[in-house]
């Protein structure tokens, strides 16, 4: 309380009081116009920071939602074309099965089988088209090689040799591959020499004939190049190349035994080597079947110490040997990193009495062994060694949660089979996929059976078709499972979005009722200070003199 009130004190107190009330009033007005409680960081510093974090979280959730929508697109498409839509793979396979059953009956004529083969060829091409389906410009069954068709049509050789007893080093399917040329009809190739019927000869030395009309007419096929060094492995058996019409067939061992056929007998048991050059499809995508392990060694480390990995790796993993804990029990301390060594996680395993050392890492196991003396364990000199697991990768995965991702693609090779030039297998030409029933190979053989009037071929393929359909159904189920997971993740995501939006609104939005009450109070306060100030200001002794 001022003892002595002066004009200066009075006026500064008026202005100060009016200003204070007015600025609080204006502050509420800003909140009213933006409808936000926090209009600058200093209004509520903690909330200001949390609002940013919350908005960022919402953005992430929106990203996940966006990814889920995209993933749905991929998986719905795969689901439709594999199993549920008209003209889907399963539909086509069912029709093929009907045709195969027809062809497998004994009452059908050669012409009927030929007619069946025409329709089969159409279905075969349809299946290749399906396998090359694109989603937003990307081929969905080619793994990471999205810019090219997953399959191209190719040729393969089916070898039917039921010579009894089989000669030593007999030929088989794997003995042949087509290196060049094309044909619109199945070519039937036979070792043929009227004088040598029933005897065996080295593939490179035999004489051949072939037919492109199912055995009605015959032409000569010749070994155009013999004793070719295997380009993949100079120490492997020498190869030879046979010109079959417009197609060049390579025989991987020119010394493999072929058996001359008896031209008078039809395709039957123990009638020499029957070779069908028939259509197939070659997978152009990539795989995720295996991984490569490399090592970084400190100087003085055992150079023969190498790593191999087993498991299902989706990303590169680096593993580092840190130290050996003398124990007991003796332990190997090691670290792994899934981000090229930015962050390492240390763990340990008990040291086995003999090697190899098996280290659990994310995705599988790393096995460290001494190449030159298997079973030797790493020593102190090897500490600091790093092993890098580089998986073959083909999975396209979308992030649908902070630590949750979903694969949106299926590899064509795992559905349709066909031929695949496995990288890193040391063989520079495609070979048939043998992990499961091979759709394109089965249908290729069916076409061959139709075009060469082979009832036996139909019968064999009929059985294989069931296996093929089982594989496709399995993949459809897999896709369905992933779709279900997307749906439930999406539901959870929407719930999280709601609660996050709620939280954000709590932090940044103004409470209108409270604000309006406050505005009214502030208005009253401002009015009253104006009133009281003006009353005092008017008073002066001069008025009374």
């Amino acid at each position, binding site marked *: 309380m*001022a*003892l*002595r009130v*002066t*004009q*200066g*004190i009075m006026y500064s107190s008026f202005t100060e009081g009016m200003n204070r009330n007015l600025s609080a009033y204006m502050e509420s007005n800003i909140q009213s116009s*933006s409808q936000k409680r*926090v*209009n*600058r*960081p*200093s*209004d509520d*510093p*903690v909330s*200001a*920071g*949390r*609002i*940013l974090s919350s*908005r*960022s979280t919402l*953005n*992430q959730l*929106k*990203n996940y939602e*966006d*990814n889920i929508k*995209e993933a749905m697109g991929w998986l719905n498409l795969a689901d439709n074309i594999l199993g549920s839509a008209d003209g889907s793979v399963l539909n086509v396979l069912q029709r093929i099965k009907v045709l195969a059953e027809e062809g497998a009956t004994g009452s059908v004529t050669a012409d009927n089988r030929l007619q069946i083969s025409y329709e089969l060829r159409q279905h075969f091409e349809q299946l290749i088209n399906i396998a090359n389906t694109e989603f*937003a410009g990307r081929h969905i069954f080619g793994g*990471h*090689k*999205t*810019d090219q068709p997953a399959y191209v049509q190719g040729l393969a050789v089916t070898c039917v040799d039921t010579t009894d007893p089989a000669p030593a080093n007999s030929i088989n399917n794997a003995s042949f591959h087509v290196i060049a040329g094309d044909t619109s009809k199945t070519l039937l190739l036979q070792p043929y020499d009227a004088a040598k019927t029933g005897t065996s000869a080295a593939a490179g030395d035999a004489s051949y004939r072939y037919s492109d009309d199912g055995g009605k007419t015959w032409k000569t096929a010749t070994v155009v190049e013999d004793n070719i060094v295997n380009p993949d492995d100079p120490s492997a058996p020498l190869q030879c190349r046979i010109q079959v019409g417009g197609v060049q067939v390579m025989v991987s061992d020119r010394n493999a035994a072929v058996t001359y056929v008896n031209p008078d007998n039809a395709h039957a048991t123990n009638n020499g080597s029957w070779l069908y050059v028939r259509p197939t499809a070659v997978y152009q995508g*990539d795989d995720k079947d295996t*991984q*490569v392990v*490399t090592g*970084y*060694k400190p*100087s003085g480390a055992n150079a023969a110490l190498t790593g191999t990995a087993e498991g299902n790796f989706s990303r590169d993993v680096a593993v580092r040997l840190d130290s050996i804990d003398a124990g007991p029990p003796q332990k190997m301390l090691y670290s792994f990193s899934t*981000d*090229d*060594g*930015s962050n390492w996680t240390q763990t340990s395993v008990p040291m086995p009495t003999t090697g190899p050392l098996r280290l659990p890492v994310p995705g599988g196991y790393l096995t460290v062994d001494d190449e030159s003396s298997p079973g030797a364990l790493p020593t102190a000199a090897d500490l*600091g060694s*790093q092993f*890098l697991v*580089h*998986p*073959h*990768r083909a999975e*396209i995965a979308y*992030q649908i949660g902070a630590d949750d991702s979903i694969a949106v693609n299926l590899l064509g090779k795992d559905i349709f089979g066909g031929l695949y030039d496995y990288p*890193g297998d040391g063989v520079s030409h495609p070979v048939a996929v043998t992990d499961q029933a091979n759709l394109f190979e089965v249908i290729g053989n069916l076409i061959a059976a139709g075009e060469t009037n082979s009832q036996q071929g139909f019968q064999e393929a009929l059985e294989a078709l069931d296996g093929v359909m089982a594989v496709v159904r399995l993949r459809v189920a897999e896709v369905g499972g992933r779709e279900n997971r997307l749906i439930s993740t999406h539901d959870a995501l929407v719930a999280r979005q709601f609660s996050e939006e709620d939280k954000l609104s709590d932090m*940044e939005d103004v409470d209108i009722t409270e604000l309006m009450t406050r505005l009214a109070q502030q208005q009253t306060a401002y009015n009253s200070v104006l009133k009281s100030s003006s009353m005092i200001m008017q008073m*002066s*002794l001069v008025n009374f*003199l």
Partner: protein
Amino acid sequence: MAFGVNSVMSMGVGALFASQANIQVTGNNISNVNTPGYSRQAVVQTEKASINYNPGQVGQGVQTKEIIRYFDAFVESNFLQKYGSSQRYEVQYSQLRYVDSIFNEANIDGIGSSLDEMFKAWNKLSQYPNDLSTREALLAKSQTLATSIRNTDQTLRALEEQMNSMIRQDVNTANNLMQEIAALNREISASYLEGRNNPNELMDTRDAKVRELAGIIDIHVEDRGPGAYSVSMKNGNTLVQNDIAFKLDFKGAGVENNLTASSPYKATNGTAHFAGSDHYEYTVEMVTEYTDEDGNLVTGQDTIGGGAKFKVSIDGGKTWLTNDNGDPLLFNANEENGAVRAGELDLWFDAGQVANGDRFVIAPKSDVYWVSTTSGSVNISTQIYNDGSDNSLRITGGSLGGLLEFRDYRLGEYRDRLDAVAQTVVWEVNRIHSTGAGLEPLQSVMGTYKVGNTSAALGSPDARFTWADRLQSGNMTFAVYNPETGKPTIPYPGLEVMFQQPGGGMGNFDPAVHTLQDVANAINNASFDDGTGTMVSPFSANIIDGKLHIQSSDPDKYAFGITGDTTGLAAALGLNTFFTGESASTFAVHGDLANNLNLINAGRPNGVGEINPGDARTAEDIAKLVSKAVTISTTWNKPTSQTIGDYYASLVTKVGADTAGVKFTAATETAIALDLHDRQEEISGVNLDEEMSNLIKFQASYKAAAKLITTADEMLQVLLGLKQ
């Protein structure tokens, strides 16, 4: 004369005079009712000495002694202190309000949303890894982020410049005020006769000047009567002594030697040198006894460039920069060619011998100095210790204190943290991006980060390398591609680079051992059998201006890619990276990417060394950074582990909390200062009603005095009439 008519007459004249003087003073009070700094004045009047007479002592009337002003020196000294303190915070508040609005993202988009947008664009790229328009969008979003971070930094730096000019103005004003106060002291002591002649107006003027000075710098006033009036800073530095004014100076960066008494460095006139700038003041102390790498205690290491080491402090030697074990970090004290990086500065020393404990205070910024007449200038820029307390030997109040605190400890901190945001985004994105692959293999890459000393171990401070601390032991592998087909030329994983080990032999990279030259050599040594038995090097590395450059040895035959790097070298040297720059001001998207979108790495070489268009491993990993806790640190703060977005949010919170806190402190200090001001005003202010009643009072006494004279006159007439 006893008493008579004349006596009455002269008494009347005295009373008339006294009333007149009172009316004059009252008039002056009324006139100056609104004059700032005016102190109410009053006439001191006393009875005249009485004379002994019959019937006893008779009063002789009134006499006016002096005109005094109402002013309470004690209240004033309290006020000056609070006023300085309130100014320190008011000045900061007015600046912080601006910063508060710079970081305001309540209703507009800023760095926080740009950051989210960039990660969103990476996520989109993970959906469409080979789509060029998605790449274009990512580039645009990344550039937006870079621009908003750079602009914010630029605004903060402009503010810092503005602070410097405001500090310079304040220093000039303070110097002028000090001169004026000294001049006033001279005038006051010339006309001051205590108890008789009070230079009230001059003293009012001086008090106003002192108040103004107190608003600029913390002061303490000592008034010991006429001619003995001094003003000093709280730390004792004299600003004005009687009629002598001292000086403040605002000058650029400098080094101050603080050598031990017997230091041999004195004889050689040696000192420390530095390059770079920081908002902290560095205290560097020489260490000649320490435990060496082998764990042995060595002593007498006192030669610059020959074993001497030093430690660094940013709070005047209270705490030292430490390593992970908590021991002070020791740097090599070298001559210029071996300068080392400590904090933000490159430091080196003149050749010579030093003594343990020799100190150098390095001010890598413009600072305020007190210029003493005898011992040169002393740095008095505000310094705040880690615990938040002021260094009491420095400026602690006034607008100068506020401006310096704001410039060095608030703006500086925000810029540090913004740098940390930029650095972390650059590092984390580049670390992932550098081992990724774009849509085409590389033919030539130019590193974007410079190594100051290419023959010093990359991980040591001697290398003067931004990312020295981030390097790790490990190795790198390069893939070699056929540029036409894009297919790997040699089987996966390609070429491992082998580093020459100190003990002979080849092995992994070690940041404590290998120099940039070693890295270049290792890359140059990498070769493979081209199938004909000849070893070929598909690429070569050379160092250009401290940056590593790798190019294909035959662009028609070989292109390359980085397939593995557990060292961090590729990211640290700026090879195959997405961002360039190492601070908020240099943060940018790599220029090569803007010219060639194919160089944005969405995938990475797979297990067979292929780069496939459908692979989005790298894009996905970078997109995941948005929710990944990463290590973030500024040069001087301990590292924290949180997401980049959260770290930025904490910067916004800090700015908001600082603003709100300073606002609160400013309001409190100002309220107290205002209260003290009111107390002084109660004493020295003019109340018009009071003056009005005084006026009536003195008017009446004037009338009465005049009546006294007419009465005396009449009495005289009567006396004179007696004779007739």
